[in-house]
């Protein structure tokens, strides 16, 4: 059964007399409030609205009017995508799916009264609350850096203006200058992301600034798709990239945004761009709601419900769920399990068993794409990995080109799945 616009408009016409009074119209219908309009939240809102065909009142709270995906933003840095192609409106979710899209910040959750407070002052009642707020940064994670330094030393780890700022800084580097990255510790959003970014920055620099250097300070022993990236860096960007791991002080980092220096294990480096990606935690509203433990919000794998509150579900990066990487694909996958469970709980529809999957594509250079993926199931304890695969080193050019083409198809697929 698919959502039929005519059915929706038809039921809206029947209640046309009540349209001026949305609170009255909503009365009696179960209410779902979704906070965060990314891969988790937009997907959950769309699936609940689509599959319940108007039986559930869905409100989506998202501050930005145009959502710029963080996935594929590295391709913008590499010159493979323009920023406009990464931006998406919520218009279809409102017009075709009947979702009440509210552009505001959620700043409070009253779990007893079951309401969400918005920065604009209003309050939204819910029967189920779905939090998909993405990430925020851990205060003091990188010595010398805080949010007030993000213009001098961008994180560019949320899509949009930060990504554009970082690109502008890369393009303005002096010939032979240094681009530095402070890589994050585990767990963080998009495990291959920092290394795909290095690849894309190298691709751009090779074209406009071939004598430039790239310096990575990394607190991790190893990283996602390491063999593939290191092979690619050697093949495409030989001599350009230096990574300093924890053995050589990669975890012992101090930055000075005013002086534009990066100190690694006491060694001071003058740098021209410093991309600081600090340690991460769940988006702040999860903490405000009081459902976090440490930096993340623990959930039950079977329906993504919070372990602290059965009426709240947490999706995507913010959730501590087990084995899935924090990725847009994972959030999208979790959202569909959650939507099915929430709809079942509120309307009695059939709840099917949870099942999850993830695939992450990365681009190393033109037409040189790689991927890693896995399937997952819900256990009592966590989301547990079932099976997986990763691209191999030494693959043919044709296969790498096909993998890249596939990633473009995936992008179109997932944004259609999120935004309709």
């Amino acid at each position, binding site marked *: *059964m*698919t959502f039929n616009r005519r059915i929706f408009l038809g039921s809206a016409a029947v209640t046309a007399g009540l349209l001026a009074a949305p609170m009255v119209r909503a009365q009696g219908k179960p209410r779902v409030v979704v906070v965060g309009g990314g891969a988790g939240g937009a997907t959950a809102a769309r*699936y609940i609205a689509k*599959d319940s065909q108007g039986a559930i009142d869905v409100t989506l709270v998202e501050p930005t009017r145009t959502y710029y995906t963080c996935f594929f933003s590295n391709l913008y840095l590499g010159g493979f995508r323009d920023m406009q192609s990464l931006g998406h409106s919520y218009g279809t979710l409102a017009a075709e799916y009947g979702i009440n899209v509210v552009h505001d910040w959620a700043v409070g959750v009253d779990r007893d009264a079951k309401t969400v407070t918005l920065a604009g002052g209003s309050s939204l009642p819910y029967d189920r609350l779905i939090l998909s707020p993405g990430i925020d940064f851990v205060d003091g994670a990188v010595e010398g850096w805080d949010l007030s330094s993000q213009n001098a030393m961008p994180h560019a780890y949320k899509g949009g203006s930060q990504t554009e700022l970082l690109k502008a800084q890369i393009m303005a580097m002096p010939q032979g200058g240094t681009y530095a990255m402070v890589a994050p510790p585990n767990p963080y959003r998009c495990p291959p992301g920092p290394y795909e970014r290095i690849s894309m920055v190298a691709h751009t620099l090779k074209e406009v600034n071939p004598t430039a250097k790239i310096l990575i300070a990394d607190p991790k022993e190893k990283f996602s798709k390491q063999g593939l990236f290191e092979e690619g860096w050697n093949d495409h960007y030989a001599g350009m990239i230096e990574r300093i791991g924890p053995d050589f002080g990669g975890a012992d980092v101090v930055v000075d945004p005013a002086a534009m220096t990066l100190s690694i294990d006491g060694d001071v480096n003058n740098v021209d761009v410093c991309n600081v990606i600090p340690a991460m935690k769940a988006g702040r509203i999860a903490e405000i709601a009081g459902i976090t433990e440490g930096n993340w919000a623990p959930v039950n794998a079977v329906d993504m419900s919070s372990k602290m509150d059965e009426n709240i579900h947490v999706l995507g990066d913010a959730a501590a769920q087990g084995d899935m990487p924090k990725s847009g*694909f994972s959030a*999208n*996958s979790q959202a*569909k399990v959650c939507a*099915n469970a929430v709809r079942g709980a509120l309307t009695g529809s*059939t709840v*099917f068993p949870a*099942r999850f*999957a993830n*695939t992450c594509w990365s681009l190393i250079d033109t037409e040189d794409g790689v*991927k890693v*993926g*896995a*399937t997952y199931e819900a256990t009592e304890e966590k989301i547990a990995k*079932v*099976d*997986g*695969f990763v*691209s191999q080193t030494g693959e043919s050019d044709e296969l790498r080109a096909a993998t890249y*083409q*596939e*990633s*473009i*198809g*995936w992008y*179109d*697929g*997932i944004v*259609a*799945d999120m935004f309709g």
Partner: protein
Amino acid sequence: MWRRLFFIALLGAAGTSQAEVGGDAENGQTLFRQCSGCHEVGQGARDRIGPHLNNIFDRPAGAADGYRYSAGLQRAADGGLVWNYDTLDDFIENPRRLVSNTRMSFHGFEAQQERDDLLAYLRQFSASPGNIPEAAPTAAAVDHAVAPEVLAIIGDPAYGEYLSGECTSCHQASGATDGIPSITNWPADDFVVVMHAYKEGVRAHPVMQMMAGRLSNEEIAALAAYFESIE
């Protein structure tokens, strides 16, 4: 373009033998293996994932009886697209350039000679309805044998709709295809056969092998029923 007009002039003037359309039908038959995953041609050919291609020349687009065309192709058909040497040549060079939003997931033949050869082959099945060569239809989409009792399972489309969430992270339900093929409105049998081919590792694609690998026979049938039915 002049070359194309020249061929058409020849066709009109001198009949339809393959030499005159400039292609090698024998090589075209080999190339057609890239098409036969979805299309049949020859005596008894049926619509599969794509429509059958008998009498395709001079047939208006979107005219195969009973086949559910994509909205994109339907639009092109409504706009008066007729399949002839020229339009077929354009289409198989890059399907989506001629018909945006076609569900045909094919990158196209870049080389003019390959297109000539393929069209020379297809032309044999269009010369006149009574003149279709007496050969069995080309191999169907089946590239893998599935036990009849597995093919006979009736899938539950409601369960299939839920399971389809795992597909639509990549495959667009609308049938749009760009780097990831469309799986919308496939005949259920073809869907089942292809999924089992991935599940058993006969078809090589790591993501699809992984996704199909944990689907039961009933789940594959449910997905097939759902994707066959969606509008």
